[in-house]
């Protein structure tokens, strides 16, 4: 079975009865700007597929640089129909670095053909000339081509192991990595998602996620044609400009499910106005997937508080965990269960053990095995004590929130649907017992083949074996534990800092900072959670012969990074040489540096802290951070 065969089955089954509708915002009003029924979508994909086949594109890569909308979907499926390896990537609509990234992807994936829409063709053509790729890379607008008749398409041989597309991780701009997703991977993960949302016969989905991210592509755009449902979707830009649009769509189309990262829900809770709220009806929404970044209890509560009155049910919350290397979803909260929020002993977490704190209040809901039929009462609204605020800082290592003296609150990310999730000692690979924190390893049909043409990185990430020789497992690089079958993710071994849904790679920040002034040396960038994620950069400075005041230098670094990376609340601490932790082989020890900074143990020359970060640093003692991440870094560096 291939994804193409699956799509064509659904086309035969539903014809014009199911469709994709692209929605825009016209002066604050929801407007439908285009619709493709399954039959029309299939015709489009066959025409584009036939055109690609004519050009001998089978088994080659094609870069897709479309704006949000229906044209991308037709072009993406057209690639799959012609056994062309699709490579979706963003246009530079809001990110000036998008083309820089696209250029690296073109080189990495050996791209000779770029597909786009006619509106963006002139800009992309000029860009290819500018970077000297116009001789080798052709760029065409799929909506302006003289395409063959759909009947000209003949189905090539496509098996489960055939490569469907490359999902470039939103990773470090200096080194984008393409995750190789096969037809079997995609089919399997779409089935996982369908099962998570309750295996609906006629699901209606609503979304606005970018199609070039795994969550937008797999979780939003391809699920309906896989499962036989309808999708109403808007562009990410339309959502961010007026978040009420998303909620209006949910009400208008009676959507049962939607998918988004945590920041998007928070954006809604804080930005939708009372006037916009009045017209909403969210009572039909049964599954609000929250994933791709740490799920914050503050967001879960804020949404219920803000939108409970217009029908947003706490039980709709579906925290989930996944990543591009596993196509998308690894674990998800089952439909109807609602989120599991539990408190854990802080000191035990620091020893890498998860010990639930027995609350005097209602017993936290635990759902071993089947979903409980009796309603144990709301978990979020019943949580006693104050709602965590920025002052009562969450434990960053645990990724949870810590109202004073009550233990650390963690949100469960659901349970595996059909894949195997193990918690192992990151050093030895030995499986840890339930309730112990370790690295999360994953095995199953959704796990990708590896990274495109990167054998070493593939072996590192996809070649995890237990001491007993069981494997291969995907090494997620995330830390967490399993308790009563529920997965809790507590931190990242990888040092990615997530701000407003964007992954920032510390090495990118550090490199940019170092270039600000010749007196600046090694740097370590990391996130500090204080309400939101705050970026902190610790950088060594040679004081001798320094020709500018240290304060000016720190503010210079701050300004440069704020401008280059769009960083709110950026903090900079200049330290004496040796202040940035390094392994013997010279690798930057970010977690260790972070730990020392928060503990007040760094030789700080000058610091420009935001208020939230300053509060964390002063607290210092008692925020002992688990050093498991360091153990991994050290062992790698040794």
């Amino acid at each position, binding site marked *: 079975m291939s994804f193409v065969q699956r799509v064509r089955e659904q086309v035969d089954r539903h014809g014009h009865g199911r469709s994709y509708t692209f929605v825009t915002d016209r*002066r*604050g009003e929801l407007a439908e700007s285009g619709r493709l029924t399954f039959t029309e979508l299939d015709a489009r994909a066959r025409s584009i597929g036939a055109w690609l086949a004519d050009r001998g594109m089978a088994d080659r890569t094609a870069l897709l640089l479309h704006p949000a909308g229906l044209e991308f979907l037709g072009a993406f499926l057209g690639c799959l129909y012609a056994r062309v390896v699709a490579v979706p990537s963003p246009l530079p*609509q*809001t*990110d*000036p670095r998008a083309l820089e990234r696209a250029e690296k992807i073109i080189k990495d994936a050996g791209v000779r053909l770029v597909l786009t829409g006619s509106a963006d063709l002139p800009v992309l053509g000029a860009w290819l000339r500018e970077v000297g790729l116009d001789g080798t890379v052709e760029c065409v607008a799929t909506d302006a081509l003289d395409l063959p008749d759909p009947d000209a398409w003949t189905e090539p041989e496509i098996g489960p192991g055939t490569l469907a597309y490359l999902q470039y991780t939103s990773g470090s701009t200096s080194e984008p990595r393409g995750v190789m997703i096969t037809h079997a991977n995609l089919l399997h993960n779409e089935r996982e998602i369908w099962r998570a949302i309750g295996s609906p016969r006629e699901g209606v989905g609503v979304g606005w996620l970018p199609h070039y991210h795994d969550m937008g592509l797999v979780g939003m755009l391809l699920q309906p044609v896989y499962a036989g449902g309808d999708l109403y979707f808007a562009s990410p*830009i339309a959502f*961010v*400009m*007026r*978040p009420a649009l998303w909620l209006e769509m949910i009400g208008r189309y009676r959507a049962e499910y939607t998918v988004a990262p945590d*920041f998007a829900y928070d*954006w809604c809770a804080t*930005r939708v106005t009372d006037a916009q709220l009045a017209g909403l009806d969210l009572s039909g929404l049964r599954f609000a997937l929250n994933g791709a970044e740490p799920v914050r209890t503050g967001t879960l509560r804020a949404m219920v508080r803000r939108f409970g009155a217009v029908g947003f049910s706490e039980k709709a919350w579906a925290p989930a965990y996944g990543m591009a290397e596993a196509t998308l979803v690894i674990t998800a909260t089952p439909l109807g269960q609602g989120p599991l929020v539990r408190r854990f002993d802080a000191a035990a977490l620091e020893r890498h053990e998860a010990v639930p704190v027995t609350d005097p209040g209602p017993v936290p809901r635990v759902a071993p095995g089947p979903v409980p039929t009796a309603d144990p009462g709301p978990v979020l609204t019943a949580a006693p004590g104050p709602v965590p605020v920025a002052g009562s800082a969450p434990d960053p290592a645990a990724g949870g929130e810590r109202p004073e003296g009550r233990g650390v609150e963690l949100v469960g990310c659901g349970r595996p649907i059909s894949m195997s999730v193990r918690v192992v000692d990151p050093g030895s690979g030995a499986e840890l017992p339930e309730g112990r924190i370790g690295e999360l390893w994953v095995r199953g049909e959704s796990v990708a083949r590896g990274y495109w043409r990167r054998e070493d990185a593939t072996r590192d990430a996809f070649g995890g074996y237990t001491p007993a020789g069981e494997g291969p497992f995907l090494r997620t690089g995330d830390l967490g534990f399993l308790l009563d079958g529920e997965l809790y993710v507590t931190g990242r071994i990888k040092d990615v800092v997530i*701000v*407003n*849904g*964007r992954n920032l790679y510390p090495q990118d920040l550090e490199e940019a900072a170092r270039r600000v002034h010749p007196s600046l040396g090694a740097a370590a960038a990391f996130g500090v959670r204080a309400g939101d994620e705050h970026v902190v950069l610790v950088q060594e400075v040679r004081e001798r012969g320094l020709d500018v005041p240290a304060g000016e230098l720190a503010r210079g670094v701050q*300004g440069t990074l*704020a*401008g280059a*990376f*769009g*960083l*709110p*609340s*950026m903090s900079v601490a200049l330290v004496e040489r040796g202040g940035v932790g390094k392994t013997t082989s010279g690798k930057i020890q970010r977690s260790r540096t972070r730990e020392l900074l928060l503990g007040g143990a760094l030789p700080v020359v000058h610091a420009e802290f*935001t208020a939230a970060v300053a509060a964390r640093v002063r607290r210092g003692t008692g925020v002992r951070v688990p050093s498991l991440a360091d153990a991994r870094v050290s062992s790698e560096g040794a």
Partner: protein
Amino acid sequence: MSADTGAGAGADAVRGWLTARVASYVGRPPGEIDPLVPIARYGMDSVYSLGLCGDIEAEYGLQVEPTLTWEHPTVAAIADHLLGRLSANR
């Protein structure tokens, strides 16, 4: 409210409103936002900048491009652009 407020808004009012919006996104007091300094310097990332575009549409009834803050990177530049558009609409 949009058309009236917009058409009647003077340079100071528009600048003041923009400064307050930018300050609220980046979590600083409005007094710290210099109208001649690029707002990206204060940490206005792409998400916040788009949010600001949405605010402008709602407040002044003007449709603005998502690239507004690239083309007009400071509070003063955005204000001038908006005032030009508002007087053209009058």
